[in-house]
């Protein structure tokens, strides 16, 4: 068993995220069943699969928003256990973007981006402000820095959420269906930012059904179903010739 789940020695140095034999249960329901996934630095992974297959649960285990019940998760050399210090060390290096943005409504756009760098990284207000404007410029929204989340469109809010995560200068970015809550005309502005981020060399794990995005940036597409990884392939292979019946069904459904 140990033999099977241990990460290949030669790939260990590059694996920035190592998920080994991870199990997650909600009561008696098993949401993740023996998941193994290794992400190299700079790699871009697209996670897809039917609703309820465990995609969100998996990426939420990577920054310990969900606590796994068995197996090991090692992020940037730190194993996630119950130790709060380790958990926070991992979270500093892992940015996350949610489907529903989760911006802080009572803080301005700039303040949203400044809070964690000041409180967690110890930046001064001026430094944090400068950094915030830098990343807001990167997501092309710096002219809105003094507005509040409720005054922006969904696409703008999601770009702020990306900037907020980037302000912590993470090594890894997790995206959980970042465009599914958006009106269709706003999807592209968010995807464009994500493509740029990928070009900059960011390590990314994205739950998304945006096939164009997957084709363009993914090194690997990971297909999940019922709490297990069913298929893993480069995007060309996966979309052209999925090897499992379940993946074919799934692709048939999302492409119509």
């Amino acid at each position, binding site marked *: 068993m140990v033999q099977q789940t241990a990460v290949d020695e030669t790939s260990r140095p590059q694996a920035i995220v190592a998920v080994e034999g991870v199990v997650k249960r909600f009561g008696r329901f098993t949401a993740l069943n023996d998941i193994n996934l290794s992400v190299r630095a700079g790699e871009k992974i697209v996670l897809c699969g039917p609703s309820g297959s465990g995609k969100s649960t998996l990426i939420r285990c990577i*920054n*310990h*928003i969900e606590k796994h019940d068995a197996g090991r998760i090692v992020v940037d050399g730190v194993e996630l256990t119950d130790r709060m210090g380790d958990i*926070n060390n991992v*979270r*500093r290096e*892992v*940015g*996350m973007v*949610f489907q*529903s943005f*989760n*911006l*802080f*409504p*009572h803080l301005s756009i700039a303040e949203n981006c400044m*809070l*964690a760098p000041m*409180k*967690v990284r110890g930046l001064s207000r001026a430094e944090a402000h400068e950094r915030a404007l830098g990343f807001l410029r990167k997501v092309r929204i710096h002219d809105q820095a003094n*507005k*509040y*989340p*409720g*005054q*922006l469109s969904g696409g703008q809010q999601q770009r702020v959420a990306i900037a*907020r*995560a980037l302000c*912590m200068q993470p090594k890894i970015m997790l995206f959980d269906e970042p465009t599914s809550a958006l009106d269709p005309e706003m999807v592209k502005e968010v995807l464009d930012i994500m493509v740029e981020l990928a070009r900059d060399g960011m390590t990314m794990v994205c739950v998304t059904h945006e096939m164009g995005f997957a084709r363009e940036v993914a090194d690997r597409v990971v297909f999940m179903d019922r709490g297990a990884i069913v298929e893993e392939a480069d995007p060309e292979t996966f979309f052209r010739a999925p090897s499992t019946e379940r993946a074919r069904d799934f692709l048939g459904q999302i492409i119509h």
Partner: protein
Amino acid sequence: MNSLDFSIVLQAWPYLWSGLLFSLALTAVAFVVGMVLGTCFALLQHFEVPVIARIVRGYIALIRSIPLILVLFWFFFLVPIVLGHLSGSGGPVPIGATWTAFITFGLFEAAYYSEIIRVGLRAVNRGQFEACQALALSTFETYRSVILPQVLRVASPIILSQTIILFQDTSLVYVLSLTDLLGAASKLAQLNGRLVEMYLVIVVVYLAISSAASQGVALLRKRYAIAGARR
């Protein structure tokens, strides 16, 4: 008693004024103590701290089921006896009417503010907590910078109503022979027989203070409004 004579009120003003000041001071102290303690109580329940959360819940249930006037009595007569036992001096250790009023009001209001904050905490979206976790914010920063500011904004109208009730309840200190605004007015009214004038003026003062408080909170809410928030 044929015509109203407000000159009597003018003469009595210094006494009324000292009563008003006492009411305001008691309200202010009970508000601060109540909000700080109440927020702690709410957080202890929110975190489901073992044993302590249960005790807090019991305390709040108890306080909310008995009238303030009764709590004042108990505190005034019982606590000195308890203190006497604890200190081993045999006899009761009086804590004085003023201290009794300040401590009792603070502890009493804490139970009510706590319920307001507790409900507010439950109303905060789970995604707010998750975003804080993802950003590695400490629990302390999460509550201080993100969660509580939102709770206070949402709950401010209810906190205001509770505080206005508190201000009106300060009249109950008459049972401790203390004199608040209403107490001062009734004493004077009995002395000079000008009940109508006295009570009319008191109504105006209560009205003025309550509406000033409402205006103040409205200003605060505007100043700290969550821009673009859907209501």
